[in-house]
């Protein structure tokens, strides 16, 4: 699943940033998931935990708690300024799947509900971001 590759990226980043900051034990991470990414959060969390077990490089990831927050995707037309939500767009199953793999392809399927322009901006709700990493160090 696509969720696994992003989970691998999250754990790699947590490890790298924790080493940089001198953390020895990670107690919690918070991840923001953009709605546009169309992630299955259960699979994502399972993948994060599984990869954390395998990737543990002396950092104590075993006690790490994971908090996830899904951010609603809001789009804004660059031509007429109309703002609308991704969940109002009514895409078909195939289009949803395509957006799941590469969220920017939303531009191939979505048009401004007001002026029909494809020139819109993703104001929020795109991508997977690590909001913070909590832990203790030396």
């Amino acid at each position, binding site marked *: *699943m696509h969720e696994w590759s992003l989970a691998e990226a999250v754990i790699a980043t947590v490890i790298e940033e924790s080493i940089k900051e001198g953390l020895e034990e990670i107690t919690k991470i918070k991840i923001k998931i953009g709605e546009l990414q169309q992630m299955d959060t259960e699979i994502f969390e399972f993948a994060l935990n599984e990869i954390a077990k395998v990737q543990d490089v002396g950092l104590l990831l075993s006690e790490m708690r994971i908090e996830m927050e899904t951010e609603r995707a809001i789009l804004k037309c660059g031509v007429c300024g109309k703002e609308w939500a991704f969940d109002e767009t009514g895409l078909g199953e195939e289009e949803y799947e395509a957006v799941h793999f590469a969220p920017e392809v939303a531009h191939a399927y979505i048009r401004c509900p007001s002026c029909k322009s494809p020139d819109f901006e993703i104001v929020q709700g795109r*991508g997977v971001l690590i909001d913070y990493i909590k832990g203790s160090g030396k």
Partner: protein
Amino acid sequence: METAMDPRLNIIDKRLAGIKRLIAVSGGKGGIGKSLTASVLALTLSKMGYRVGLLDLDLSAPSTHVILGIKDVYPEEEKGIIPPEVHHIKFMSIVYFTRDNPAPLRGIDISNAMLELLAVTRWGSLDFLIVDTPPGIGDATMDVIRWLRRAEFLVMTTPSKVALETVKKVIKMLTELNVPIIGVIENMKMEKSSWVKHDLKEFNVSILGEIDFDITIEGSIGDVNKLLESDFAAIIKELVLKSSGFDLKT
């Protein structure tokens, strides 16, 4: 530690770790044969027995799938995306997801889409990944330099003052950034001339060779066998074999 971090940046090197060489086909202008060269180069290297991937990063105007006649295939999802193997080439393009629809992407969207593809595509082991880039030194080329840090550039030009003007800027930028340039190919020659070579003398780049304008090549588009039999492919193979930049074992 509180700052929003994009985890995709930390996985790209791992995704590309099994690839021995990354070759970005670049050039100043559109319509000078970058995509055709990238496609035929991928086919040629594959025919020679190398394990090859082709990544189309011309996200707004992908065309390598048309050149290679690739249709009705879709990547497999297995802890990421596995590019399908077509004509013995692992092929990745945004066209799998946009299909026939126009995808009008602004700079930030191009960077994000490219980052997503690089973060989730699992290439496995390859001898070469050929990357088709859009013209000029815009977002995609800058992102190739930023994220495909081992990329070597193959630069295309034509005997046109307009094309060469921008190619010089591409070469200047790559040189300034210490990005390796395998060499320059002068494509679509319609008459004997040496002014392109002369004009490029001020740069420390090797001129790999010239390819005559091939009036028959359009009839080979979409047909891999015809492409491989074309004069264009014969010259690409010759240039690749004799170029010290490619350093192939014959």
